[in-house]
């Protein structure tokens, strides 16, 4: 943008080949041993290396929660903001700095409960960014409460000892209804496939939503069974929203792969000045 604090000129070319490990920062993750999020971190660094996205050329934005700690674990610019508000921070960043690759990460509580409204509107807005939600169907950081994606009968939380009794939030179906142009589901226990999905998502022009099943070993040990339950999506990915809706509605929630992708107009301010403040001030004369 003109007349503003702009990044210094002469951006260095990235080193010839960045490897996945080059993207890892020195900060040690706070995650529990066996946490699914390690697999997402690994897949994301592999995807960045595959795409050779310079460390300074992207930014990773997050809210609050276990998975939202991820930006600090990658050696790039990041913003660890408020619970539920990662998408607005990312939206403002992308609007102001279209040159950056913007990645947003977080969990199911952050994205679908406290941040649910932003999720709807980020899908609608279709700005060019990738939103990775690590879904473990539980609030881990606050010690094991039910999230919007938790089964209504799950009664292991002191907060809802009889279960929530509330139907589960359907991330992929809601993203589709809200207008997302790219919807995929991955599994953190299969980082190679997840890497491929993330490469596709980052390359997709527009808002790309990647729903990642990422087990919580501490509060949801039964999710160890996910390894056996996930299965590749049976059908070819579609660009037809009605077809995708049927596919997603019939799905058991464990189908992984690209579910829907369509080229829709990408929302991006144009950032080309054609006037000066002096001209605007001249218009104030009666």
């Amino acid at each position: 943008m003109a007349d503003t604090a702009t990044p210094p000129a002469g951006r260095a070319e990235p080193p010839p080949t960045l490897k996945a490990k080059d993207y890892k920062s020195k900060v040690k993750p706070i995650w529990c041993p066996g946490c699914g999020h390690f697999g997402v971190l690994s897949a994301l660094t592999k995807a960045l290396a595959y795409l050779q996205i310079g460390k300074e050329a992207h930014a990773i934005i997050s809210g609050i929660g276990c998975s939202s700690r991820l930006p600090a674990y990658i050696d790039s610019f990041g913003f660890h903001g408020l619970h539920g508000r990662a998408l607005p921070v990312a939206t403002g960043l992308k609007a102001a700095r279209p040159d950056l690759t913007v990645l947003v990460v977080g969990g199911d509580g952050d994205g679908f409960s406290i941040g649910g409204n932003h999720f709807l509107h980020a899908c609608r807005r279709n700005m060019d960014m990738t939103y990775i939600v690590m879904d473990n169907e539980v609030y881990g950081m606050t010690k094991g409460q039910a999230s919007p994606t938790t089964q209504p009968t799950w009664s292991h939380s002191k907060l809802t000892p009889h279960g929530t009794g509330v139907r589960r939030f359907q991330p992929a179906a809601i993203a589709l209804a809200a207008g997302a142009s790219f919807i995929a589901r991955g599994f953190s226990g299969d980082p190679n496939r997840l890497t491929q999905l993330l490469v596709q998502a980052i390359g997709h022009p527009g808002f790309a939503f990647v729903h990642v099943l990422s087990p919580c070993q501490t509060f949801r040990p039964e999710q160890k069974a996910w390894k056996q339950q996930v299965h590749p999506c049976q059908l070819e990915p579609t660009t037809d929203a009605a077809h995708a809706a049927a596919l997603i509605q019939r799905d058991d929630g464990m189908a992984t792969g690209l579910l829907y992708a369509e080229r829709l107009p990408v929302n991006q301010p144009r950032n080309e000045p054609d006037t000066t403040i002096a001209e605007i001030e001249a218009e104030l004369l009666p």
Partner: protein
Amino acid sequence: MPISKAPHEPIAIAFSGSGGSGAVTAGSILLAAAARAGHYGLMMRSAGPQIRGGESAALVRFGPRPIGCIGDRFDLLVGLDWGNHGRFRDEIPLGADSLILADPAAGPVPEPIVAEGVEIRQVPFLDLAGSVADGHMNMVGVGAAGALAGLPLDALVAAAGTALAGKGEAVVSAAQACIRLGHQIQDDAPPSRVGHGCGRWDLSGNEAAGLGALRGGVRFVAAYPITPASEMLEWLAPRLERLGGALLQAEDELASINMIIGSSFGGVPSLTATSGPGLSLMMEGVGLAIASETPVVVVNVQRGGPSTGIPTKSEQADLDLALYGCHGDAPHLVLAALGIADCVLTTAWAVRLAEHLQTAAIVLSDQAIGQSRAIIDPSPPFESPLRRIIPNGPEPDYQRYALTASGISPMRIPGCPGPSYTADGLEHDAAATPSSLAADHHCQLAKRHDKLARFDYGAHWAEIDGGGPGDAGSDAVGPSLCLICWGSAHGAVGEAAERLRDRGLAVKVVALRLIAPLQRDALRAAIGAALPLVIEQNASGQLFGWLRAEGALDGDAQSIARPGPLPLRPGEIVADVLAKTQL
């Protein structure tokens, strides 16, 4: 009889009517005509919450000197009709020397108006307008009011031509014909009251704040509509686009504040504007900007509160929210625009302060400033060396939150090759790594406090006008008074001070532009030995409380505080000051 006023005295004219009667259009045209005739001016709007229908009034005051407030009484009321006039009774104070123009077709003038002892003159607005194809009676009212106030016919006609140009030639001709008819009601037209100005600006406080934002360097704005701040955002939207910036409409205020944190993190000076309820929603984000040291500016165009309150009317009651609304120890900037013209400087300065100090700035405006229009001298060019400090070099040892002598840590932004960081709202160490260690918390809290406390804010912290102890003139009698105010109260307080000086009192006015961090020592020096009286438009004396808490006032200081929505009037301030001081 024309309005009898000395040439140097301002004239106050009100138009009132049912919704759709065109009172506000009439006021706008009269204001623009006054500007063309060389006057300064001010127009406040009064409206109910209805989108269509309801009632509306335009309150105009103009004269040869800058107009800071709407005054005590109206010299002329043009009653286009009397439907719902009762709702305006308090907002259009009249006196025995007020003149009322009333259309017999609209029925009798309401008894409370008659009871003021006013002079009533019958003008058949409806019949006169009916004699012109597509004529409207509000334009007859403009012509009549202009004639009685001594405004030249050509200025009125030209102002209507410009204001209505977008509605087509037929509408303009009809309006101008009606103005001519109205203007003829005064046979012995008084000598035209012509001021001496030219090249003045005609703008609202919301527009002025928008201009200040642009001058300060803002190129990204996130916006969620709210009365009475929306016009600032609407004014900015096309102009930001033309300047290569952008405005995004957010899904809510939580999104707005976080969007500007994101864009500012990207290196682009960023702002949002809202009103009380919106600011309440944004406060968590303001805290994030403070903790992560991301510059942002939030303009709060205050309205009556609490809760949804009185959205279309003014009050200065969000100071406590702006000062204390964050959880934790969260030092930040709170500024107040001292009038419509001052919105330009205050907002521009707030942007630069926030950028340089890497913190959140809350700028308090209010409905009486934001939605009023004024004829003002163009704001002098804004010059400030303050900028965000962005390092250029590779800096292998870079730490985002490094402890420095000034407390300001150079801020790398995405796209800079070399070391990166993850900005954090969690407490962190100098390298931005989350930390709950006591030492890190203490160091970072102190850093965020000290960078604001140690900064030299220069002379902009307040507007101080004359007549105080030491420079009061030897003929001043009685104790010296220091009237302390903020925001839109400044206009009425300034006029009250003049009247008190006319009574022989030594009176100084200190209008605070920078409320936090409070420049306590400078304020105490400005007060000197005078008796401080803190004047503001809220029920609880919020500025008074803050100044007390900060140790800026001694025990004899007095609070003059009353809630909105009626504007503070110079006459009541004079009376309150005299009563409080028993002078």
